[in-house]
């Protein structure tokens, strides 16, 4: 997570160098490249999603409602692009989702 926090902006820094070395020691070169690829591609995905103003897909609007509320994601400016009423009725039953809350998701470990 420290590596992501230092690398997401695409700027070289001593803190990034340190985080890279720490991650390398734990996950090796291939793990470092996986992490870097993920950070890089989601940098791009963010530009595309924000720049084109896409809405959350209806099933995702339904399935993520509680998590968005709990994590404070609705305060992000991009939330204005999604109508919270544009949901998928097939996904409104909690039984249709594997986890009913973000707390439950992380308590599985």
């Amino acid at each position, binding site marked *: *997570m420290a*590596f*992501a*926090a230092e*690398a*997401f*902006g*695409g*700027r*070289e820094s001593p803190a*990034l*160098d340190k985080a*890279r070395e720490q991650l390398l020691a734990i*996950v*090796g070169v*291939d*793990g*470092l*490249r*996986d*992490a*870097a*690829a*993920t*950070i*890089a*591609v*989601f*940098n*791009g*995905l*963010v*530009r*595309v*999603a*924000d*720049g*084109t*103003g*896409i*809405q*959350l*897909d209806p099933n995702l609007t339904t399935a993520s409602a509680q998590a968005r509320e709990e994590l404070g*994601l*609705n305060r*992000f*400016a*991009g*939330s*204005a*692009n*999604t109508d919270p009423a544009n949901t998928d009725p097939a996904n409104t039953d909690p039984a249709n989702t594997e986890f009913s809350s973000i707390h439950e998701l992380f308590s599985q470990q």
Partner: protein
Amino acid sequence: MEPIADRLLQAREDLAAVGDWLAAEQRLEAWQHTRQSRSNELDARRRQALSPHSISDMHPAGQTLSATAIDVVHRLASDSGRLTRSWAEGAMTELGEEVYTELVGISAIASVVDVYAVAVGEALLQLPSPTSSSEPAKLRPTTVGDVGAWVSQSVEGSRANVSRSLSLVPTTDRTWRSLVDSLYSHGEEFYELEWDRALNRAQVELVAARTTSLLECFY
């Protein structure tokens, strides 16, 4: 699966070629400004302002791109989480919806290539020379329409909104989707909860969630 380095080099070559609505020189100038935004003083001021709209200064026109196009690239690269529909519609009124969308795609592709290099501690790829002097065909796909986003997108099939977001500009979309596939989704493996990579799927998704949260992306 194609090695990441090969895919990044291919993306570099793709940006040096003619696009759907922009010439090769224009695409490369957009990449150059995406890269410059990391240290641009105006971008830093705008990012730190309570509202980006409180800063009225504009970037000057480039050699091949208008001031509006340059501004679009800088805002995408430096503060995309605070873009608004009214701002985008203003830019599209001047540039056209297709040029605006191609600039979004170029900025995204350039960000991926550059952020990866910085993250792994490698030198940034040198910007190539244009490989084409052709004029863009400027053909609008017949299969796009209004699906609720700021720009027109494919109305065919049942693709997720994010996967059809650049369908208005197919040439750039192909490069973009290939990058996403090589660096993240890996074709059919995307539908598996277990991934056979150095990082497991949960670790990859946590890195992804942390990155998009830091960039304040709602989607």
